[in-house]
């Protein structure tokens, strides 16, 4: 995680009259949301958030509705003006940027995909995708050539001359994705992009994002309220509640060691064997374990270890960077699976 792409420090967004005073006031800023609303009529949607997003990472912000995640992602490009704090992008604070700088940032560095697509109904798919390029002054030939490339990339070839209302929801979101990609930004922000789509289309689109991430290696900040989506896409996941960070870590961390009861409740229905790695169930090497027992890496997902363990007559050794750290056996795997069944 050398030189993070985006670095957020002490970020606040307070809605309501006189909201700008609250972050600086130690008494008010420590109040809980309900009390704050009662006392000041203000609503702190984002409170004192700190996190870094590494280059090329898929960083997921997860929370229930009203947790402030959509506000947070809008603060990154100041679509909503943050109250205080800093957002460093390439070492420069977005909050200090002037109008022109901010516009340049939006045009070239960070683009966004929206829940309700936000397509321009009077423009064709081609013109929608090339909109950002047009805005920054690209010539017609240039922007159409680039846009056709992108349209093919997001799987809309043949639909260039269609209008948004002739497309299904999933296809419309492909246009939204294409529009965000066309400007070749370093970072793409996703605001619950697939919540409005039905489950099958959503799965396709998630796969699409994973594919695009592999092909293009863009940094992605992805907001969702869907835990399985977060676990599927996120390199790291930040869980928000009432505008605050509750826990930030890999999916593995969240499920394996939830920071509090809130997170534990959240992840209780996750099939643990699909998410956790062997390191969470490793026992000390037993005395009866033979030295030539099969060896698995500590990073292996538990479900993937099942065939090896079941086929082995003795416990299986677990190694982490060349060192044997312990062993697992049938019981330890079954205990993970059983606990999931019970929770479900």
């Amino acid at each position, binding site marked *: 995680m050398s030189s993070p792409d985006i670095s957020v420090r002490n970020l606040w967004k307070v809605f309501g009259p006189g909201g700008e005073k609250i972050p600086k006031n130690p008494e008010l800023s420590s109040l809980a949301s309900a009390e704050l609303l009662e006392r000041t009529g203000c609503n702190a949607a984002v409170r004192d958030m700190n996190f870094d997003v590494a280059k090329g990472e898929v960083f997921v912000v997860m929370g229930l509705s009203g947790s402030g995640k959509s506000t947070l992602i809008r603060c990154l490009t100041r679509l909503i003006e943050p109250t205080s704090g800093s957002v460093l992008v390439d070492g420069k604070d977005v909050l200090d940027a002037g109008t022109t700088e901010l*516009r340049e940032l939006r045009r070239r560095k960070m683009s966004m995909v*929206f829940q309700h697509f936000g397509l321009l109904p009077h423009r064709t798919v081609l013109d929608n995708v090339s909109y950002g390029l047009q*805005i*920054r002054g690209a010539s017609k030939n240039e922007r159409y050539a680039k846009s056709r490339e992108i349209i093919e990339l997001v799987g809309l070839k043949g639909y260039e001359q269609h209008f948004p209302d002739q497309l299904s929801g999933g296809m419309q979101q492909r246009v939204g994705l294409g529009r965000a990609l066309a400007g070749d930004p370093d970072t793409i922000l996703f605001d619950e992009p697939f919540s409005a789509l039905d489950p099958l289309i959503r799965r396709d689109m998630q796969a699409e994002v994973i594919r695009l991430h592999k092909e293009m290696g863009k940094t992605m900040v992805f907001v969702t309220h869907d835990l399985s989506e977060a676990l599927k896409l996120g390199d790291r996941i930040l869980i928000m509640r009432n505008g605050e960070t509750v826990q930030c870590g890999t999916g593995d961390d969240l499920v394996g060691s939830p920071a509090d009861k809130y997170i534990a409740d959240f992840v209780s229905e996750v099939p643990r064997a699909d998410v956790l790695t062997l390191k969470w169930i490793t026992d000390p090497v037993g005395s009866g374990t033979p030295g030539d027992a099969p060896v698995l890496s500590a990073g292996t997902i538990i479900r993937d270890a099942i065939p090896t363990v079941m086929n082995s007559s003795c416990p299986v050794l677990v190694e982490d960077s060349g060192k044997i750290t312990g062993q697992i056996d049938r019981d330890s795997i079954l205990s993970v699976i059983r606990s999931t069944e019970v929770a479900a």
Partner: protein
Amino acid sequence: MSTLVRDRAPVQTSANTLRPPRKRLSRRVLLLGAAGVLWLLGFLFLHGTSTLTLPASELTDLHRSLNQFNAWVASNRADNPVFQYVFTPFRSAVDSVANLFTGTFAASSTGLRLPEIGWLGTVGLLSWIAFAVGNARVGLLTAAAFTFFGLQGLFTEAAYTFALVLTAVLFSLLIGIPLGVLSGISGRVSQVITPVLDFMQILPTFVYLAPLALIFLIGPASAVIATVIYAVPPLIRLTAHGIRNIPENTREASDSLGTTGLQRLLTLQLPLARRTIVMGVNQSTMAALSMVTIAALIAAPGLGQVVVRALQSLDVGTAVNAGLSIVLLAIVLDRVTTAASRRAEPGAARKRRISRRSRYILLAVSLVVVLVMVQLSRTMLWAAAFPKNLNFGPDIVSGVGAASEWLQTNLSLFTVSFREALTNGILNPFQSLLTETPFYLLVAVVLVAAYALGGWKLALVTASCLAAIIYLGLWSDAMVTLASTLVATAVVMVLGIIFGVAMGRSNKVDQIMRPMLDAGQTMPAFVYLVPFLGLFGATRFTAIVAGIIYAAPVAIKITADGIAAISPTVMEAAVSSGSTPWQVITKVQLPMARKSLALAANQGLIYVLAMVVVGALVGAGGLGYDVVAGFVQSSLFGKGLAAGLAIVFLGILLDRMTQAAAADPVRKIRSAKSSAH
């Protein structure tokens, strides 16, 4: 004309959370009841005293000094610098544009020579334009209508009216679209413009005319200026509305790509608002036609003048003939601009049946034909002036005249008894209640009512309006107008509720009624007088009936929309708990549509007031009569001007009172705002 709902600030403020709202409401009812009792008691003991009656030919000092001002303006017009450098050049500029169009389509400025383009060319050219901005159907409609004007013997008059409407709409576009865009972009501009527009909307068409004639003389220039004042507000409103109401997510998406303000305007707001703006042009055009015909009172040439002259001589045949032309012109203008707005819809391009290329070819070919027609009409006499042997106007006039006479004699039993029953039964008693109550008592009653409805603020506004009317010396006339207005509005509300509920409850009724109401709303105010003049003769009653018919469509539509907007879930819940249809209407639909009903009453009042005033042309008394008399007799000019102002104050008074009645008593609940936007 615009029926856009204005944002209304709730008038009542402090309401304690602890006190239930019901108590507050009962206080309101108590005060209103007390005012009513006070009024009736006062009327019983004091009626006929201090009524401030002013006979028709008498003047107050204020009227005389306004007359003197009129004379002063007339004698100083030539050398006063304000006139020399501001008003007169402005007037000649407007005049020259108007003359350009009238000279092209109707007649040269002297009225003796033929127009630049004769009738054949005009028909061809206008139809082609209709085809180009709309579609082939409206093109044919235009051709048929303009040919029909010729057959009616009214081609020149119709062309005059059209030319003036064109001039006024052109100026309206020049002023309205930039202002609308500005007001859509900037909240501050909108804050300044909106109250001005609200105010302009409650002014009855009639009252612009006298002051404008004073400054700009009678004639086309004043007519055009008055028309622009009347026609531009809906355009500004709709343009601003279109620019402002871009879907939030689209706007945000465009912002996230780094658009500048100008880029946002050009690539997003204007294209998306295009349809709304063209709808504004439609409303503006219909308003312009309505006003241009009324401007006949200050010597605007055209169909309006034919109607005015016919109304004054009670020549029903001629009035109907010219009225028919106005209706036709209204239909043509409405259809063409509506077709244009359909064309402006996003995505309209791909729904067309013929390809863009074949359309262009068709347009080019027909343009050649049109140019030939124009050339013909400039060289051949038969194509320049509409052939006299094809003029069926006199036949229509005498036919309608005879029919009207037949109706009046043979239906008199019905029409006269209907008229007399209503006049003697409701109108006269109510009018004498208003005119014979001592003015101080009535002022007190109105103030108490105003306080009950809207607190001190409304009472203050009301007091100022009433004081102004008294100062203008027209209290009694104002009460006559008020009586007619209130009676007509009551009828309008009954119609509004009956038909509105029927439309709101049944899609079928809605589908049948709505086109009729839409058509009714596009007709110029004037035209409504004509058929009722034929039925009821020249009386106040005719004006009231015309006012009711003029205002009913608005009230019905607003009520119907209010009823239809109630969520189906609520209706389902009501029906599933076993309510009868009557219970659903009285317990659920009408209470939930209360705001719409109040708005319907508000708009109904404004429309009725406008019409009752215009009704002076067919014998309604009151302020409208004073205004008309002021146009005709220079010695009554001052009184007419004062009457115009009194109408304005009456309008403001009625508007504010109904708005306050519509506003909810505020129930303050600490609202937890949604976190995001």
